[in-house]
């Protein structure tokens, strides 16, 4: 069947009615909408509830971070609580923003892992949260967690996180993968 020429209809054709084109009722309608939102939010604030959709950072944090959100770094631990990090500096080398600083220490008693980090610091003012350090780590010692660190401060040096905070991650399971048994001597703390 041959269809006669049909004028194309566009999705954005003007479809205003005479009522809408007279402008004034639509102005009033718009004002009613905005003042309605205003009054609703104001009523919420006055009655002690929250009348905003935004998150009041840093007092509040979003609850809807994705489970795979790369919020902050954590250092995994051995079963005895020592960091799994062997201070090999591979994360610091691969880091595109050069934010990881590691100072290695030597522990002659621990034959399997004689190197351990004395200092492990990350500058969150420059970190781009790319996750390359996690990829580069041969020991699964650094991971990224869903939570975000509490960084806002008047001092930029507060944006460095050190060993104490990075090791504060204590999940109930999967602390570290089990190591094959070997001649390891436990370092007494």
């Amino acid at each position, binding site marked *: 069947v041959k269809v006669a020429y049909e004028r194309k209809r566009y999705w954005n054709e003007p479809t205003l009615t005479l009522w809408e084109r007279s402008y004034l009722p639509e*102005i009033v309608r*718009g*004002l009613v*909408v*905005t*003042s309605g*939102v*205003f009054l609703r*939010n*104001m009523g919420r*604030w006055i009655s002690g509830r929250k*009348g*905003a*959709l*935004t998150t*009041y950072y840093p007092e509040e944090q979003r609850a809807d971070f994705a489970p795979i959100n790369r919020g902050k770094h954590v250092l995994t631990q051995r079963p005895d609580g020592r960091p799994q990090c062997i201070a090999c500096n591979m994360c610091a080398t691969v880091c595109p923003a050069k934010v990881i600083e590691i100072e290695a220490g030597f522990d002659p008693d621990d034959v399997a892992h004689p190197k351990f980090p004395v200092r492990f610091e990350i500058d969150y003012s420059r970190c781009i949260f790319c996750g390359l350090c996690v990829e580069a780590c041969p020991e699964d010692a650094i991971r990224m967690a869903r939570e975000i660190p509490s960084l806002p401060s008047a001092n930029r040096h507060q944006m460095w996180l050190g060993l104490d905070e990075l090791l504060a991650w204590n999940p109930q399971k999967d602390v570290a993968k089990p190591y094959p048994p070997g001649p390891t001597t436990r370092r007494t703390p």
Partner: protein
Amino acid sequence: MKELIDRIIIQQLGHDPQSWPLTQALYLLGMLLVGMVLTTFGAVFAGLLSWWERRIAARIQSRIGPNRVGPQGVLQFIADALKLILKEDLIPSDSDHILFRIAPYFVMTGFILTFVVLPFGYRLSPTNMNVGLFYVVSITALVVVGILISGWSSNSKWSLFGGIRAAAQVVSYEIPAGTVILVPILMAGSLNMHEIIRAQGGAPWDWFMFQTPWGYASFFILFVAMLAEGNRTPFDLPEAESELIAGYYTEYTSMKMGLFMFAEFIEIAIIGALFTTLFLGGYNLPYMSDAGFAFPGGTTVALPHVAVVLIQLVTFLVKVMLVCSFQILIRWSLPRFRYDQVLRFAWKFMLPVALANLTLTAIVLWSHLKGPM
């Protein structure tokens, strides 16, 4: 003011103001004092208004708004002004330096000078000019000169477009505004701001806005015209952010830019004061006279003059804030007009309606006149 200083000279200092040589110096001191008080008042009021606008905008958009500086963020404007003062004051090398420097002061002066006649309370205005309203209308015309100068001298396309738009728009809308402002003048029979307020009563049905249908109509005509004259949304073409960055003050930095912002907010307040005076009964409260309250049951509350003036001042400012809030609500609700729509609206709709309104008012008032025709 002059009488007050004269009285102080006679009573406190024991001199004759006519012959005492320091009389003129005292007058000058008094003028400076009043000027400083008014400018400070204007600055603080405009600053608070900027906070008020931002908070209302946040409520409308389900945000929180400035709430860090001071309780609920009231002192935000001080932090803003401090920041602006500390910024580098850049002057574009290709601009017209002298004009570029003086332009913000034209805008500022045009608005600050209107404070001279604003009736904050009974006898509480710096001067009681018998052409007060005419003075307001004419002195605010200085603002468009400043806007034009800033647009031209910046040597920037955005500024120039902003200046051109402002000139076309403000000049166009001054005609319907000037026409319709005659309606309350006709109803009050005076150009004096205090006389206009005295001609109205305390209760809402005694206000010029609700007394007569033409008063009601002229309120809205004048409101639209004033929004356009003040470059407020939906007529904010001269400073349309999405098209012209900041319009005529794109190139301004530091406190010069702050002066433009300040003028913008003080203009909201002045529009509010003008509407309060012309249509909303000014500082009148129901059952209130200059001596105190006189309720219909026969009970009277006598108040000292200072208390009466303070109550009137508060009444006036509350009404001003209501009008300002309405302007703010409009700003955060309505989209911007197109340039040709703005001018067509002024010439093809506002002006005929304003003229018809004025003619109707004049005919009705004339037919009610007593005495020989």
